[in-house]
């Protein structure tokens, strides 16, 4: 039994073979494509090309080629894309682990290098495996606020995604045709999950040729007695995905559904009760906002535009025309709330107050009272400022904003990522950025 991992006979699981690997590969191809696209959308949602304060990867170069002004419709757009990004990523963890398990003999196969192309492909596989694990690990750690990774999350996850994608694209180009062919062939042959056949060709696995004639098969030449059918193994992987999905997806809904998210960071019970009881990203205490600086006497909103600067107390803001909008909070960490009823002053009305004609409101730079935090300053684009639902909110769900939700006043913009909905607003500067 003291065989080395470089010997094909070392790997004895009868589950390994083209069928299992191909099935998991096709699932990952679809799933990771969705992750990549929703990830790119999330970057676009920050409007990074609008202002440096929104861009945590300013040296992105051509990697931002696709950026576009983030729309305000539908208002649940970011809630959907980012909810899918994080929830699907978590649900794919078991599929990824099973896929890596299914191909691990390849890591040790001899000869280590059969050709120049093969050597380069193996190097590319390091980027593929290292890249996919790097992305999953940084993502899973970030949503749990465990910032142990070496640097800021945004550049690591964004550039890491592109490194991974480069390897992923070539891996798909080289392998997807074989995977699809394998699955077709298996489907055309015996359908059911009977125990895998013996080691020799002629069994179902034997039908599928490896990628190249020289490539050793993943099928064990000396398989152990099966302890699970192939169908059973697929159920176990799928069951793991469903369990993770079921204990996570609820953090995108309210009430009893949120309670089903038993292990997700924003699952379980709401942090409070009443109109301000909904989920909080960062509390006032965590951001060092004191009651003294938000008091009626101390706090003034400073609005600047072409006609000068206006300073408004909260009472004076409440005298302006107030409007309502039902909008969700959606966080980059993959949790969201359903619509909350916000009430406040339209951003475009504030722009008009400092000299911008109605309908021509420009971009705005919003600054918070908070002294630290990556998004204590955030820029909103003209299309966001002009949307009638974009508010400087004073109340939520019929009550004054609580300190944790941004009292005295906060931004709320349809479809914008949570961090752009600045809390504890101190200063707004209207003008083209």
């Amino acid at each position, binding site marked *: 039994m003291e065989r080395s991992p470089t010997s094909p006979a070392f790997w004895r699981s009868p589950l390994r073979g083209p069928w299992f690997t191909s099935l998991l590969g096709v699932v990952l191809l679809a799933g990771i494509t969705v992750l990549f696209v929703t990830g790119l959308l999330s970057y676009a949602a920050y409007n990074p090309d609008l202002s440096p304060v929104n861009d945590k990867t300013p040296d992105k*170069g051509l990697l931002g080629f696709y950026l576009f002004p983030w729309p305000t419709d539908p208002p649940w757009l970011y809630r959907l894309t980012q909810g899918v990004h994080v929830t699907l990523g978590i649900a794919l963890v078991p599929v990824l682990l099973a896929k890596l398990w299914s191909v691990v003999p390849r890591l040790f196969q001899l000869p280590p290098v059969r050709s120049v192309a093969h050597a380069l492909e193996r190097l590319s596989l390091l980027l593929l495996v290292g890249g996919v694990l790097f992305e999953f690990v940084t993502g899973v750690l970030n949503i749990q*606020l465990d910032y142990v990774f070496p*640097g800021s999350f945004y*550049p690591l996850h964004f550039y890491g995604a592109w*490194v991974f994608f480069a390897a992923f694209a070539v891996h798909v180009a080289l392998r997807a045709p074989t995977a699809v062919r394998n699955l077709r062939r298996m489907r055309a042959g015996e359908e059911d999950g009977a125990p895998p056949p013996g080691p020799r060709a002629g069994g179902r696995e034997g039908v599928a040729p490896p990628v190249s004639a020289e490539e050793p098969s993943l099928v064990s030449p000396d398989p152990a*007695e099966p302890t699970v059918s192939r169908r059973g193994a697929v159920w176990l992987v799928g069951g793991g995905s469903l*369990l993770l999905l079921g204990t996570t997806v609820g953090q995108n809904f309210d009430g009893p559904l949120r309670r089903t998210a038993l292990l997700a960071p924003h699952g*379980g019970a709401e942090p409070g009760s009443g109109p301000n009881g909904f*989920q909080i990203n960062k509390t006032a205490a965590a951001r060092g906002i004191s009651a003294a600086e938000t008091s009626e006497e101390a706090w003034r909103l400073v609005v600047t535009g072409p006609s000068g600067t206006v300073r408004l107390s909260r009472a004076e803001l409440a005298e302006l025309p107030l409007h309502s909008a039902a909008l969700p909070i959606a966080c980059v960490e993959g949790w969201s709330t359903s619509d909350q009823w916000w009430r406040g002053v339209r951003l475009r009305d504030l722009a008009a107050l400092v000299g911008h004609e109605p309908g021509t409101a420009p971009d705005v730079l919003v600054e918070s009272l908070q002294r630290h935090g990556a998004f204590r300053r955030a820029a909103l684009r003209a299309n966001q400022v002009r949307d009638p639902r974009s508010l400087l909110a004073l109340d939520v769900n019929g009550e004054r904003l609580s300190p944790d939700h941004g009292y005295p006043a906060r931004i709320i913009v349809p479809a914008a990522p949570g961090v752009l909905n600045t809390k504890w607003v101190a200063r707004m500067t209207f003008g083209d950025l």
Partner: protein
Amino acid sequence: MATHRLPLGSPLQLLLLAGSFALAGYAGVRLLADDWFGVALWFVGAAVVHDLVLLPLYAAADRALVRAADTAGPRAADTAGPREEAAGPRAGAAATPPPVRRARVMYVRVPAALSGLLLLVWFPLISGRVADRYASATGMSASGFLGRWLLITALLFGGSALLLVLRARRATKDRPPAVH
């Protein structure tokens, strides 16, 4: 051997790989711009730790489980049917039809794998290592995660045990000891 030259391989494959490395390089210099050593360590380390630590660990645990099932002769035989009662542990194990004996592995493997998966993904919250930061940021307590994970684990194992008992009972009632 020494005079053997390495063949080039498929030209299409070489072209695709060259393109891939160019893109990876373009993103990679940006990825490595700040803390190149730390990032490279995490990038390569993730692959190494998975392939050479995590995977061998859970594979070894699984092998130990299968071996334990193989040697759990008389008990396994009991639930399979009265036929094996007189046999010794090794003989009993050997005489029980392998599918019956080994099918029981799944009753441990499934709950253990699912529980381990949840722990792997939610380790920072379950372990409490981010409890203070979590509580300060979200206004919620992080103390519930460990308890909820333990309860889910208990449910998984309990449900699996219940299923095993029910199936074994049905098997002995309905038909002579046989493969199910």
